[in-house]
């Protein structure tokens, strides 16, 4: 029998890939993935441990980690964009979203999960991914896109958020009407997408193998 839920192993795999290729990643923007993936693995393990073994709610944990995830990827996009307009868009999102999260947490507290984080976050992530792809299209460089770590990361972000979008879009309605009380529907979609997402993140680190001169902020 498995120790953790299946999808957590893929998050650990991504973390291991990050550690394994740290020598190549440490001089790039991808170095930030090490603390991020460590945090994600910790949150997922805790998120699973709290209700299963201690019978406590984990909403507060995801109320903190979900905004961090979106902010983290917005920062990664910000660091990789070449066009000032795209960078500006990512930066505006980081500032406004941070402000919204802080205000919301101060006013309403962190013990009830805010579904708007998911809706706003996933929508902006889709936009940021499309902007990244459009930038890649207009680039005059001639390298192989398959060997670019950022391509795999963006693909992961795009697929994950596109796949979750239908749930996130209705999440407020679902929670209000208590239509998914055991969040089994959310788990059904989310856990499968997590597998795909972190597999792609692991591939991104494997690509670093041959990418010595990766750009630095």
């Amino acid at each position, binding site marked *: 029998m498995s120790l953790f839920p299946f999808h957590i192993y893929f998050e650990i795999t991504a973390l291991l890939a990050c550690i394994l290729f740290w020598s190549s990643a440490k001089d790039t923007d991808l170095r930030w993935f090490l603390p991020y993936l460590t945090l994600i693995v910790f949150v997922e393990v805790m998120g699973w441990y709290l209700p299963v073994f201690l019978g406590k709610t984990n909403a507060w944990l995801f109320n903190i980690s979900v905004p961090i995830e979106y902010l983290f990827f917005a920062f990664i996009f910000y660091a990789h964009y070449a066009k000032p307009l795209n960078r500006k868009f990512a930066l505006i999102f980081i500032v406004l979203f941070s402000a919204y999260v802080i205000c919301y947490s101060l006013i309403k507290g962190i013990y009830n999960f805010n579904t708007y984080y998911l809706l706003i976050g996933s929508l902006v992530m889709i936009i940021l991914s499309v902007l990244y792809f459009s930038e890649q299209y207009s680039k005059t460089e*001639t390298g192989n896109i398959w060997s670019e770590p950022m391509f795999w990361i963006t*693909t992961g972000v795009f697929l994950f958020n596109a*796949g979750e979008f239908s749930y996130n879009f209705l999440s407020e309605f679902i929670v209000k009407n208590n239509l998914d009380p055991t969040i089994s529907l959310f788990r059904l979609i989310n856990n499968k997408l997590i597998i795909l997402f972190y597999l792609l993140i692991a591939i991104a680190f494997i690509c670093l193998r041959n990418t010595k001169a990766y750009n630095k902020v």
Partner: protein
Amino acid sequence: MPEKYKSIQQGLTDYVRTGAIIFLLLALLFIIFIVFSIQRRRKMILEKKQMEHQYQQTLLQTQLEIQEQTLKNISQEIHDNIGQALSLAKLNLNTMTPIDDEMLQQKILNSKELVSKAIVDLRDLSRSLDTDYVQQMGLQRAIEYEVEMIRKTGTVETNMIVEGSMFRLEKQKELILFRIVQETFNNILKHAGAKNINVNINYDAAGFALIIRDDGKGVDLQSFNRGENNNFGLGIRNMHNRAKLIGADFKMSSMPGEGTEVRIILPNEPNNENKQ
């Protein structure tokens, strides 16, 4: 749990699940499309860069070859004409005797002519010492000068006809065309054993055309196409490739004993800045 609630829940589950699959598939299709577009575009950019690099390389090579050829011409000119004229003038001066006035006058006159010829030759030569002379005087003038040089050797009769109103081509194109002309003349002088060379330049709305004909022994182009006579073949292939690089059409026709014709046609793309 009421039946109605259960059916709403089931409907929602189906709806969200289907939605997730549809969105995921759409996203996947988008990524596939974007990746193929990016790859295709990058391939095109790479090809363009390679072509530009090749163009620059050829241009550089052409400039070097023109310089080399120019130096060869200068050396030959000094040896065959200026050197000889001055030697003759020196001989005249050495053999002057004040006894015979008439002879003395004739020798002075001859020496003056020889020195004048040497001065004219030197002036012509100094023009070609400037390695950018093709770009400065233009393709037509540079070809005229080349034809004149050949005529002066006295081994071949030359004839040049220009039709239409002259316009300048792009500088790089002129340089490459000039090198092709130089190479053609070289081939004629080295291998053809021709008595006459006819050069025909034509400017019209369709473009620029240049035809060089000789009445030499000709060449068996079939053997060249079969890959025999590699050195000669390489030269022709080189000329052909260079013409292709600037968008010109290069044709060579020849039969053993019937001379050779080289035809270069560059479709019109006049450089407005240089238009005369």
